[in-house]
């Protein structure tokens, strides 16, 4: 059994924070369990809530290699796991003089091309790598079934060669945007965590980390505005990535406090659907802004 990289959940959370990733309690616990129990972590959530980012951050934190498999429709074994180098095999066949032995020893490691899944099972000098299987909902169901063997036994069966098993299992993080449901058999093998939009405190902490130039007052306004916006029944609510983008955009525009005109002209950073933009822009944005100012004043009053 490997040693645990972290002693407690709190230590993991603190280390992530040092690297600039602020994780909620739920995410830290799931991640801690996945690391301690050597089981995959399945992250589901809306776009732009930091699912992919956590894998990158973990790789940096543990100083491991990051192997990324971006899923797409039609992804098959040849692109995900391994492939035989047929061209090289052909050259080999033709270079052999003796006809009888031409077809011998053609399916050996020499002719094997490793793709991300197989690569993740190999030994790495920095310890077991981090395998990020990104947006698995974009791959077909057949690919999920293929993953089952790999994720429960940490091995891949190559018919011509045999079973390739990992001596140390990789750390696997699977993300999904939920454009379709993933089969329960796959989810069962993983620790599951739904990555939600952050609450006010968490989002403030994230902004303080990612857009410190904005200043506390503007950050407060931005966070309050986005939080209210998320309750508005939009087609696509803004994620954390959008909040950070917006804060940085406002800093670029030398904005020190939100005003209706500024909000209208930068709305495209926050909302990505025309229906949503036309609903919020103008009077609705002004109403939300008034609400934001009122709630900030009341929270300051209560603190005094």
């Amino acid at each position, binding site marked *: 059994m490997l040693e645990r990289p972290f002693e407690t959940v709190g230590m993991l959370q603190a280390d992530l924070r040092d690297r600039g990733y602020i994780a909620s309690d739920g995410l830290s616990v799931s991640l801690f*369990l996945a690391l301690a129990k050597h*089981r995959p972590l399945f992250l589901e959530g809306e776009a732009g809530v930091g699912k992919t980012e956590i894998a990158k951050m973990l790789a940096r934190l543990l100083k491991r290699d990051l192997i990324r498999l971006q899923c797409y429709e039609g992804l098959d074994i040849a692109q995900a796991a391994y492939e035989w180098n*047929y061209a090289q095999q052909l050259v080999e066949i033709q270079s052999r003089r003796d006809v009888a032995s031409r077809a011998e020893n053609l399916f050996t490691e020499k002719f094997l091309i490793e793709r991300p899944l197989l690569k993740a099972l190999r030994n790495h000098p920095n310890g077991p790598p981090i395998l990020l299987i990104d947006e698995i909902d974009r791959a077909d169901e057949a690919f999920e079934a293929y993953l089952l063997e790999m994720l429960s036994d940490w091995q891949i069966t190559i018919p011509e060669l045999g079973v390739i098993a990992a001596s140390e299992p990789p750390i696997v993080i699977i993300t999904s945007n939920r454009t379709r449901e993933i089969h329960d058999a796959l989810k069962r093998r993983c620790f599951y965590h739904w990555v939600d939009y952050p609450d006010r405190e968490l989002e403030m902490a994230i902004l303080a980390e990612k857009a410190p130039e904005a200043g506390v007052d503007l950050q407060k306004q931005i966070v309050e505005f986005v939080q209210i916006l998320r309750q508005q029944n939009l087609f696509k609510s803004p994620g954390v990535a959008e909040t950070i983008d917006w804060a940085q955009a406002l800093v670029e525009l030398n904005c020190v406090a939100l005003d209706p005109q500024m909000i209208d002209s930068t709305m495209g950073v926050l909302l990505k659907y025309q229906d949503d933009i036309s609903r919020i822009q103008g009077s609705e944005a002004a109403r939300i802004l008034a609400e934001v100012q009122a709630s900030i004043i009341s929270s300051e009053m209560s603190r005094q």
Partner: protein
Amino acid sequence: MNDGAVPDLPSGAFLPKLDQNIMLFVRLLRRIGLPVGPASMVGAVDAVMTVGVANKSIFYHGLASCLIKRPEDRKLFDQAFHLFWQNPKFMERVRDLLLPQIKVPGLDTDDAEEMLRRLSDVLADRSPPQAGDETKIEIDASATASDRAVLQSKDFEMMSGDELRAAMASMASLTPRLPQRRARRWRPSQNRGQVAIRTALQSASRQFGMVLPHFRTRQTKPRPLVILCDISGSMEQYSRVMLHFIHALTQHHPAVTSFLFGTQLTNITRQMRHRDGDEAVQLVSKLVADWSGGTLIGSNLALFNRQWSRRVLAQGATVMLITDGLDCTPDGDVSALEMLDFEMERLHKSAYNLMWLNPLLRFDGFAPKSRSIQTMLPHVDDFVPMHSLQSISDIVDGLQMVGKRRSHKLSLWQQLARDAALTTRPDNGYAQIKRT
């Protein structure tokens, strides 16, 4: 790690009790409908041992990461967690309720009663055949054949209980084929398509270096089918039959997603996956609270478009909308009609094909006079009746060709709807004079 056994626990009086309590908690979760298997339960105990029980939030998330598999279960889990782990009295009550179970697991009393009822139904129907009288058997056989013919074209609304049951049973024998679409993957092909260099080389290395031509074409796969079925009061007679129809489709294809809507929208896909049709319908009727109420088609579609369309319409799905199109908004409520118009248009644009199944079409003199029907008609690709077994089997037969040809009848209906709209629209002077 997953060797299937609970890891060695430190011997203490508290910890063994904890895993008993987790087991009780898991049973409670199953009772309220969360799909938690034994492996997840063992995993949860293990997880709690790993993260410790000192911090409540960490304890909560430790359990959650193993026991929740779908985001929609989070709320139920939350409530169960707070009830169970914060109130010792409740824990005891659950223990009393769940531990001394002698019943068949998974069945509660209602189910058991329903099973008994069905069992007795079966026993009553299957009277042993009378031996001897051969002529009688002959007459019976011919009667059955003509019965079947009558049943084929009979309106579901006019059917007796027995006939309805026979109709529902015959749904199971439907063999629907979903429309196909080209997928991104390749499959080997005999003599047409692209040259498959890789396969050719692969077989060459097995054939002593002889390279023979190989071909490949794109695979096809069934388009997902999404069914939106109205269960409001005006559809009452049809909704049960429709559930059996949806069940038959779901059994044949995993890519069928189904929703019921009345006053609210309910996803019934998981219930419909149940092998037994009657039990599946039973599960649904427990799940859905708004049978035979009113309906607001527009707001239901809005909800579907916002919450589900991106998840279930992503891969070129066909949509089947089963409704009579009679909205319960008061006539002349323009904003509701505008909403219906907008949401229908959006649904139409995000689906590959939108098919409207309407029981009202059974009437020969049906005319699209209702404002809501006039609003919806321009946004569909097909408009077909669904009142009898015959019309259902026509739909099933035509399913494979969906999207391949344009419906002639539809353009007639749309023309009729436009004409009707002209004569009934309030801003038309003639109509106003007539009303006053």
